[in-house]
């Protein structure tokens, strides 16, 4: 079976690859959106914290014998606590200033973190084994479905939609939504907004670290893996529009898939298609597809 002269299995495998990349875009841009909403900080360090997540998983396995499944839980907590320290010690002085200061500070943190890992491990990637339970592939008829990649899509979508549910449908989420709109008023109701801000940053960072652990067996674990990803993720955020939870999830997934199909039909364009779309969206809807005009 063929579609537009492209064999069906090739199409499916590129769709899956697109979904895998899209899952990472979704998790990363979701974290950025939540952080930007409440903290007004464009967290450039998000990519470096993703890299840190992957590296901690690798270090945990090689130095302490912490397996993949344990790392999936422990690493986001550790990196999340690291994020909380960043927020408490540095970011909180910047909330009243222009976005630019937050961007510059987190860019500096990125350079520091990448520098530290590069000086210890160089720039060449470290391999991380796919966990035994998920190695191999399943025959689904027209395609051999790699188990680990399927797991990445399922796990990240579960986390994304759980996050969406908590923010949009629960009491705690209503504090976050209200705080994003008018933090001073929420505080005047007696809610400890400074604590909420700290925990939100910790959560966003933990989400990046979780994505990092998921990525370790697929991408090479290297000090630069975050910078490669974050550039695309920022384009995703611009296309989706800052501040919308569902918007960032759908845009992330959608762009991954579009990238995948571009690789099938016109491979030369696959690395730039996201940026072309970004340009088009900026011309038509400057606030992004799901963003609100201010």
């Amino acid at each position, binding site marked *: 079976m063929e579609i537009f002269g492209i064999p069906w299995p090739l199409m499916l495998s590129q769709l899956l690859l697109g979904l895998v990349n899209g899952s990472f875009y979704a998790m990363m841009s979701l974290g950025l959106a939540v952080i930007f909403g409440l903290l007004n900080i464009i967290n450039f360090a998000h990519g470096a914290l993703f890299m840190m997540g992957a590296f901690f998983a690798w270090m945990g396995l090689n130095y302490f014998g912490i397996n993949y499944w344990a790392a999936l839980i422990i690493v986001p907590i550790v990196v999340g606590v690291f994020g909380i320290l960043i927020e408490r010690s540095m970011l909180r002085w910047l909330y009243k200033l222009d976005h630019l200061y937050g961007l510059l500070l987190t860019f500096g943190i990125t350079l520091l973190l990448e520098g530290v890992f590069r000086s210890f491990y160089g720039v060449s990637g470290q391999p991380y084994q796919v966990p035994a339970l998920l190695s191999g592939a399943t025959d689904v008829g027209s395609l051999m479905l790699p188990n680990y990649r399927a797991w990445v899509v399922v796990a990240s979508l579960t986390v994304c939609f759980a996050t969406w549910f908590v923010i949009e449908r629960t*009491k705690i989420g*209503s*504090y976050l*939504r*209200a705080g*994003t*709109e*008018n933090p*001073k*008023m*929420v*505080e*005047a*109701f*007696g*809610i*400890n*907004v*400074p604590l909420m801000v700290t925990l939100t940053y910790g959560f966003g960072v933990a989400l990046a670290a979780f994505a990092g652990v998921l990525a370790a067996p697929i991408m090479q674990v290297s000090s630069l893996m975050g910078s490669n990803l974050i550039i695309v993720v920022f384009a995703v955020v611009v296309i989706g529009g800052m501040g919308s939870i569902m918007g960032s999830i759908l845009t992330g997934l959608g762009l991954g898939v579009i990238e995948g199909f571009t690789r099938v039909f016109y491979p030369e364009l696959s690395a730039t298609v996201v940026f072309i779309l970004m340009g088009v969206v900026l011309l038509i809807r400057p606030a992004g597809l799901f963003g609100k005009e201010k």
Partner: protein
Amino acid sequence: MTTAAEPKSIVEKERKMGIALEIRNLQAWYGESYILQDMNITVNQGEVVTLLGRNGSGRTTTLRAIMGLTGARKGSIRIGGVESINLPTYKIAHLGVGYCPEERAIFSSLTTEENLLLPPSVSKTDKGMSVKEIYDMFPNLAERKASQGTRLSGGEQQMLAVARILRTGAKLLLLDEISEGLAPVIVQALSRMIVTLKAKGYTIVMVEQNFRFAAPLADRFYVVEHGQVVETFAASELDSKMPVLSELLGV
């Protein structure tokens, strides 16, 4: 300025005297601008007090300063006898204060009911009104509880903004221009509500431009000008004070 460690006796004394709010030599800034120059206000428990004055005289800033929402503050603000000048905003609310700002601050990302349920309880002893009591008082809000908060009419948004602080057990209410821009029938409903709240023992500080709304409700009036109190009188003195008032306010 008083320090955080308060002698217990003062707190108890003021409670016994029934003082809900005591503002002494309050100064407040917004960035560089010096707004409150020397505010002195005392509100007894169960009293309804109205701050009158022209636009920009510092009445709204007084309410915001009580909540810690201005820039720097100096002086003393005792709420139920507890000094709050150095407390963060969220702790001030937990002294039993409910604040309804002039701009109403209804959240557009929350439904009417989510808006109503948002403020947490701020009193250990006082339960506040139940959701049912509030819906009985404002049937419109019950009908539209699933609507986006900002889709309500201006009057309904105002009711919601007041209603949501009645649930929390706050006994000191700071109400900023609640009658502003509303149809007469809604203004009447709000004025009945103030009477009901007063009967239930709430202490209310109102900022009002609408003198005819405020006059029959308040026990006492403060006239504010250039960030200071320039005149204060009781409701019983209202008639004799009208000449002074019309000069100060142009009413």
